[in-house]
């Protein structure tokens, strides 16, 4: 691994200041960043270890809002009875990430800010991939099993985060700290696609960090994930769903993971569900609509039936509540 400067700030302000240097990167649990540094995928001259900052690992009910610190570990989120009871999709997503070891190290902030898992991007030799500041996408005319069926533009890597899918269904808010202080970003505008900037996956500036994620507690939600292996595997497709309304649906949110460069909201299916109840025929039609507009590459069309199947299962699970 190339040499780098290790810093351990004790406050958010100090962290942000340290991150203003060129090629400085925040460190949570390191389960993603260390792999990237080892393979020298992205230049990293300074590591800013956030774990020295006290009070960023809370999981609490803040008068009806679930507030989770960016340094909360995925295992703690998965094990929290508050999260399991009031935002079940997030607890399920956290519990399905990788393996116990990675969930013990991995933080919520790191999970949301992780880099893509495209196998070409992660291949140290492919330095001309867009995500590495290059000029070519290997996936378009290459092996695209892992890649986007929606919204690919120049780059077709999908966002790999499981919690991002769940939090999109829960319409969470991300609290971000930077040199100018704090701002809150709705999760629906937190992630950016390659048509905005193919070098990043979120709105975060290099000197901004996630400090907290906030979710309104309450309505039933569910998260499901399909992956070849039961553990230590990224989603090939995942779904987070939440419905608000007792008999008749007022609001439905369906977020699809691992099918687009950002969590992909199935807006047509959501609109279709409004004013209806979750009867089997309604669920079947919503599942069809969820895959509307998908444009597969050479080897990822299998994601289309996966989307439909997972949405059907997720809505069926919600209808039973």
């Amino acid at each position, binding site marked *: 691994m190339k040499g780098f400067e290790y810093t351990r700030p004790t406050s958010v302000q100090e962290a942000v200041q340290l991150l203003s240097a060129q090629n400085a990167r925040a460190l949570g649990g390191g389960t993603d960043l260390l792999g990237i540094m080892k393979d020298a995928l992205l230049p990293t001259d300074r590591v800013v270890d956030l774990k020295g900052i006290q009070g960023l690992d809370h999981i609490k009910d803040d008068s009806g809002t679930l507030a989770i610190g960016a340094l909360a570990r995925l295992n703690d989120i998965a094990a929290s009875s508050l999260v399991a009871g009031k935002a079940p999709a997030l607890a399920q997503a956290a519990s399905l990430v990788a393996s116990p070891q990675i969930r013990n190290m991995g933080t919520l902030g790191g999970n949301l800010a992780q880099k893509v898992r495209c196998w070409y991007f992660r291949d140290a030799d492919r330095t001309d991939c867009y995500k590495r500041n290059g000029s070519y996408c290997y996936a*378009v005319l290459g092996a695209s099993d892992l890649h986007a069926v929606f919204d690919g533009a120049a780059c077709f890597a999908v966002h790999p985060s499981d919690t991002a899918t769940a939090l999109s269904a829960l319409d969470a808010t991300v609290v971000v700290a930077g040199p100018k202080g704090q701002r809150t970003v709705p999760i629906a505008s937190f992630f950016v696609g390659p048509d905005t900037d193919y070098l990043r996956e979120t709105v975060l500036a290099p000197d901004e960090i996630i400090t907290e994620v906030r979710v309104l507690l309450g309505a039933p939600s569910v998260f499901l994930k399909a992956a070849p292996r039961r553990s230590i595997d990224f989603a090939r497709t995942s779904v987070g769903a939440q419905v608000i309304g007792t008999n008749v649906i007022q609001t439905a949110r369906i977020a699809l993971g691992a099918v687009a460069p950002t969590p992909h909201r199935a807006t047509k299916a959501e609109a279709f569900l409004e004013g209806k109840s979750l009867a089997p025929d309604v669920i079947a039609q919503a599942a069809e609509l969820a895959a509307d507009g998908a444009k597969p590459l050479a080897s990822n069309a299998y994601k289309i039936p996966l989307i439909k199947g997972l949405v059907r299962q997720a809505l069926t699970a919600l209808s039973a509540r």
Partner: protein
Amino acid sequence: MSDRDIPRSGETAPEEALSRRRLVFGGLAAAGVVAATVGTFGRAATAVAARQPLSDKVVVTDPTLCVGCLACEVNCSTWHASVGRSGVPRIRILATPEVKLQTQLASYLPGRTGFSPSTCRQCPTPWCAPNCPTDALRVDPATGDRYISETECIDCGKCEVDCPVEWKGTLARTSLPIDSKRVIRDATNNVYVKCDLCIGRQGGPICVERCPVNVAIRAGYVKSDHLALDLRPSTQEQWEKLV
């Protein structure tokens, strides 16, 4: 549409416009034939389109070779923004379900057909130029490249009105409609933009360089005697065939 490019004999230009054009194009107007186009467009005819040197390049697009990856749009935005120009893409992919992908590509990517790239045609007679009040719409004397100097553009929109080529349809990227001309407005930065052939860029137009189908054709993986995005001189004959 092609008759718009044929200067009509017997028509004379208003004196005022003529002298202004001489100023705009300087030596070019003096060297070339000044063609009058009064009344050709069904609108107030103050325009005088001077016969300019042909653009020695235009991006010739072949929809049957486009897999809709949007690399051209994204790179167009990114490069122009990186040199301080508007980031609005000057090449756009329209959704055109009737277009069928070339067979070799279709056998590999059956789901990715029906895309149509298009951009400014670098018209042999640059209709967009004469009415620009600030002379922001220019013809590069060396290459004939018709381009907008965005720092001079005052957002008046005359070039869009004068451009004879429509840009209508559904954008593949957003599924939203586009209803413009090949000169298009950047509503955020209040300027008009058009394909400037990446003027100033080493290596020429970035879309042509980076289109992955072009890369595959150049490498011999995809068999085609021309590129998906190809550069050719903008002759009248070529112009008439452009998408």
